[in-house]
C-alpha cells in the first residue's frame, strides 16, 4: 500500500451563522491511529467530512502527501485513497448488503454488473467479522432488515471495500457490542501494520487508550492540542476537551429497600424479539438493562411504553395494564426517552419550546395558554442547564447533548412515575453525561422508578441498583451488589447465566 500523509490546516466551516469548525487542524500518517476527541458539537464529524469531500469547507486547506488538494466531491477524496465510516451511516435502506458495499464501484464487465462476483466479494468481507453477527446478515439481505450493529458492520466493510489509504471511523463503535469492537480493533491493528492511516472518533475514553497512538482534541470547533496517547492520561485529555469537567468516580449502589412499593411488575413479556421477560421495579430504583445490542432491550422499553405490540402481563402501580398507544402509557405516568433522538425524539426544525411541550399541550387548554407554557418550558430548560439562544430557536441549532436535554425535559415536564431510558447517553460528551447522571440521581431520590438501558458498561456499573442482562430476548442474569462486576456483565452478555 502506498504510504499517505494527510494534513488539515485551519479548516473552517460555517452554516449560516453557526460555526461548526473554526480552526480544524489534523495531521495523520500511514501506520498511525489518530484519535479525534472533543465534546458534542466540537466539530469532529465536520472535520471528518471535509476530509472525505462530503462538506465543502469555507476556508483552510487539506494537504495530501504534502500537496494542497481540494476535494470537489466524495469520489475525488476516494481517488486520493480516503474513505470513511460515517457517524450517521451512509447506507441505502432499499439496497442489499452487497449492493451497498459495492455501490458506485460495482465490478462490471462491458458495462454490466457482475452480480455473482459482487456477492462473493461481499461474503469475503463479511467473513472478517465471522461469527459476530446474526444469520440475517447476508449479501442479499436488504439493509432495512438489519439491526443497528449489523448496519454498522456493513458501513465499516463498505468503507474498507474502497481499499483506502486513510480510513476515518466516526463513532464506528457506538452501536457495536464488545466482541465486535474487539474484532474491529484487531482489524485496525492489521490495517495499521499494512501502512494504513486511521482516524478514530469515539466518546469512550477506554477505547481511545486501547487503540489510538495519538489524539487530536477539538474544542468549540478549534483544534486545541495533539497528544501522544502513551504519554498522556484521561484527565489531561478530558481537560483539553472540556474546561473544568469532572470525571465521575461512582460508588456501587445498594439494592433498593424491599419496603418501597413496586411500581412495575412484568410477567412473561413477549414480542417479536422478546421471549418471555419478567421483572420488578420499585419506586426510587434505577434498574439497568445490559447485554449486547439488539437482544430485546429496546423492545422491552417500547413494549412497556405501548409503542409496539406485546403479549404477557404488565402490572403498573398494582394495576394490570395493556397500552395500545404511547398516549395511554403517558396517561399512566410512564415516559420513554427513545434511543435515537434525531429520528425518534425530536422535531428538528421546530422550536425548543414546541419540542418540550409536545407531550403536554393538552394541559394548557384551548386556546393554548402560551405564557404559562413558556414559563414552564423556561423553567425546565433552566433546571437542565440547557445552553440555547432562546426557547424559540429551532432544536437543530442545539448540540447533541443539549438536544438530548430537550428530549428528557419533555418528559420531566410531566413528572413521570416510571421513566424508561433507551441508551440516552449514546454519543453524548463527558460533560453532558455527568450532568445527566446527576439528574438521574435526583429523580431517583425523588422516588421515580427508572428502567435504564445503556450500551456503555461503565454506566450500568456506576449508576444502577441492579442490572438485568438480556441475551436473545431473555434475561440471562440479574446482577446486584458484589455480583455487579464488569466480568459478570460481559459473561452474561454472551449468554452465560451468572
Amino acid at each position, binding site marked *: 500500500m502506498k504510504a499517505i500523509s494527510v494534513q488539515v490546516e485551519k479548516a473552517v466551516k460555517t452554516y449560516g451563522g453557526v460555526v461548526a469548525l473554526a480552526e480544524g487542524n489534523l495531521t495523520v500518517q500511514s501506520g498511525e491511529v489518530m484519535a479525534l476527541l472533543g465534546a458534542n458539537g466540537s466539530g469532529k464529524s465536520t472535520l471528518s467530512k471535509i476530509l472525505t469531500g462530503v462538506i*465543502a469547507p469555507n476556508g483552510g486547506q487539506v494537504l495530501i502527501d504534502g500537496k494542497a488538494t481540494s476535494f470537489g466531491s466524495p469520489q475525488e477524496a476516494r481517488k486520493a485513497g480516503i474513505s470513511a465510516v460515517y457517524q450517521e451511516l451512509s447506507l441505502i435502506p432499499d439496497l442489499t448488503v452487497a449492493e451497498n458495499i459495492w455501490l458506485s464501484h460495482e465490478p462490471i464487465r462491458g458495462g454490466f454488473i457482475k452480480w455473482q462476483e459482487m456477492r462473493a466479494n461481499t461474503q469475503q468481507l463479511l467473513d472478517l467479522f465471522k461469527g459476530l453477527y446474526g444469520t440475517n446478515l447476508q449479501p442479499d439481505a436488504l439493509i432495512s432488515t438489519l439491526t443497528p450493529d449489523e448496519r454498522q458492520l456493513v458501513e465499516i466493510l463498505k468503507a474498507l471495500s474502497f481499499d483506502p489509504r486513510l480510513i476515518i471511523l466516526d463513532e464506528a463503535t457506538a452501536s457495536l457490542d464488545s466482541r465486535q469492537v474487539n474484532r474491529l480493533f484487531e482489524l485496525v491493528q492489521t490495517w495499521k501494520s499494512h501502512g494504513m492511516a486511521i482516524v478514530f472518533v469515539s466518546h469512550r475514553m477506554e477505547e481511545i487508550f486501547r487503540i489510538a497512538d495519538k489524539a487530536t482534541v477539538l474544542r468549540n470547533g478549534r483544534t486545541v492540542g495533539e497528544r501522544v496517547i502513551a504519554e498522556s492520561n484521561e484527565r489531561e485529555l478530558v481537560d483539553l476537551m472540556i474546561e473544568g469537567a469532572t470525571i465521575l468516580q461512582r460508588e456501587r449502589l445498594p439494592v433498593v429497600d424491599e419496603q418501597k412499593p413496586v411500581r412495575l411488575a412484568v410477567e412473561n413479556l413477549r414480542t417479536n424479539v422478546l421471549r418471555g421477560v419478567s421483572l420488578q421495579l420499585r419506586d426510587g430504583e434505577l434498574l439497568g438493562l445490559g447485554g449486547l445490542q439488539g437482544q430485546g432491550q429496546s423492545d422491552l422499553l417500547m413494549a412497556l411504553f405501548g*409503542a409496539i405490540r406485546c403479549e404477557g402481563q404488565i402490572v403498573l402501580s398494582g394495576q394490570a395494564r395493556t397500552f395500545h398507544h404511547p398516549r395511554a402509557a403517558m396517561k399512566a405516568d410512564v415516559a420513554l426517552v427513545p434511543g435515537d433522538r434525531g429520528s*425518534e*425524539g*425530536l*422535531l*428538528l426544525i*421546530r422550536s425548543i419550546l*414546541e419540542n418540550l411541550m*409536545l407531550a403536554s399541550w393538552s394541559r394548557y387548554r384551548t386556546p393554548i395558554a402560551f405564557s404559562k407554557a413558556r414559563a414552564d418550558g423556561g423553567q425546565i430548560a433552566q433546571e437542565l442547564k440547557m445552553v440555547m439562544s432562546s426557547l424559540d430557536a429551532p432544536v437543530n441549532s442545539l448540540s447533541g447533548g443539549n438536544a438530548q436535554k430537550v428530549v428528557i425535559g419533555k418528559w420531566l415536564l410531566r413528572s413521570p412515575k416510571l421513566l424508561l431510558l433507551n441508551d440516552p447517553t449514546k454519543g453524548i460528551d463527558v460533560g453532558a453525561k455527568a450532568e445527566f447522571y446527576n439528574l438521574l440521581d435526583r429523580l431517583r431520590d425523588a422516588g421515580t422508578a427508572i428502567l435504564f438501558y445503556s450500551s456503555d458498561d461503565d454506566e450500568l456499573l456506576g449508576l444502577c441498583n441492579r442490572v438485568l442482562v438480556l441475551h436473545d430476548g431473555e434475561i440471562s442474569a440479574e446482577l446486584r451488589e458484589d455480583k455487579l462486576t464488569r466480568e459478570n456483565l460481559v459473561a452474561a452478555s454472551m449468554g452465560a447465566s451468572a
Partner: protein
Amino acid sequence: MNTSLNRIRSLIPPPLIALMLAVFLFVFGGVLAPGFTNPDQAVNIARLAAFLGIIAAGQTLVIISGGEGIDLSSGALVTLGAILTYRLTGGDDAMILPALLLVLSVGALIGALNGIGIAFLGMPPLVITLGMAGVVTGVIYFYTQGQLIGRTPPAMGRWLSQALIGPIPGVIIVWVLLGLGMWVLLERTAFGKQLFAIGINRTAARLSGVRVNLIVVLTYMLSGALAALGGFVLLGFTQTVFLNLGQPYLFPSIAAVVVGGTVLAGGKGSYWGTMAGALVLQVINSLLLALRVEEAFQLIILGTILLVLLTMYGRQRSVRQ
C-alpha cells in the same frame, strides 16, 4: 447571491415576501397597464383571491401534515359543495344553513375516507386523493345524471359576492374570519401543534403521545370540509353550477399554499402565507389580463414567475454542504 438570498429569507418570512410582492405587483401594474391600479380592482382582486384562499385552506393543513400530504380531491369537492347547495336550497334562503351543514358533513366524510386510506392503508396521499377526486366526480355525475336542477338562494349572492360593508363583499370578511380561525387552530390548539409535529417526524410524534393516525384522518376531514365550504362560497359568486366548477381551482390552490411559504415536505407553514399566496396569484392573473398578453405567453410568464418565486424561498437543503 446565495447568501444574500438566504439573508433576505431569514429576515423576511415568506408570507411577508408574498404579501409585499402582491402589493408591489398591484401598484406597479398601474404603470404597465394604466387604469389597473384602482380601488375597484383592489376589491375585485381581493374577492377573487378570497375564493381561491378559502379553497386553499384545507390544502394548507394537509400539506403541513407532511407525509407527502396533498389533497387532489379538493377541486371535485368544491364542485360537489356547490352542486349540493344549489340543489338542496333550490333557491330558498331558509335552506342555506341546513345546506351548509350538509355540505360540510359530506366534505368531511369524503376527507375522512382519504385520511383512512392514508393512515390505515398506507396509500400515498397524491394517489388516493386523485382517485377520490375521480370518485367524487363519478358521484356528481351519478347524482345529477348531468342535469343540474336547483337554484341559488338570492341571499348568497348578496352576502358573499356583492358589496356588503362599504365596497367590501362578504366573502372577504368570511375569508378574514377563516384566517383568524386557521391561525388559532394552527398556533393556539394542541391539534395544530400536533399537526406540525406529525408533519416533521411521525415516529417522534407518536412516541410523544400524539395519535398520528387520528390527526391524519382529522386533517383530511378538515380539508374535505373546507373544500366543500369553498364550493358553497363559490356558489355565491357564480350563482349557478356546472359540472367542473371546482377543478380549475385545484392546482392554483396548491400553488397558493406553496407561494405562501408552506413547505411541501410538511411541518412548516402558515395560513396567512396561503392568503398572501392567493393574493399574489390573483394579482398576477389580473395583471396579465390587463396587459392583454396572448394566452401562450400568459402561461409562459406565469410558469416563470412561479419558478422565480420558488427560487426565492422554496429551496431545499443541498446534499453537499
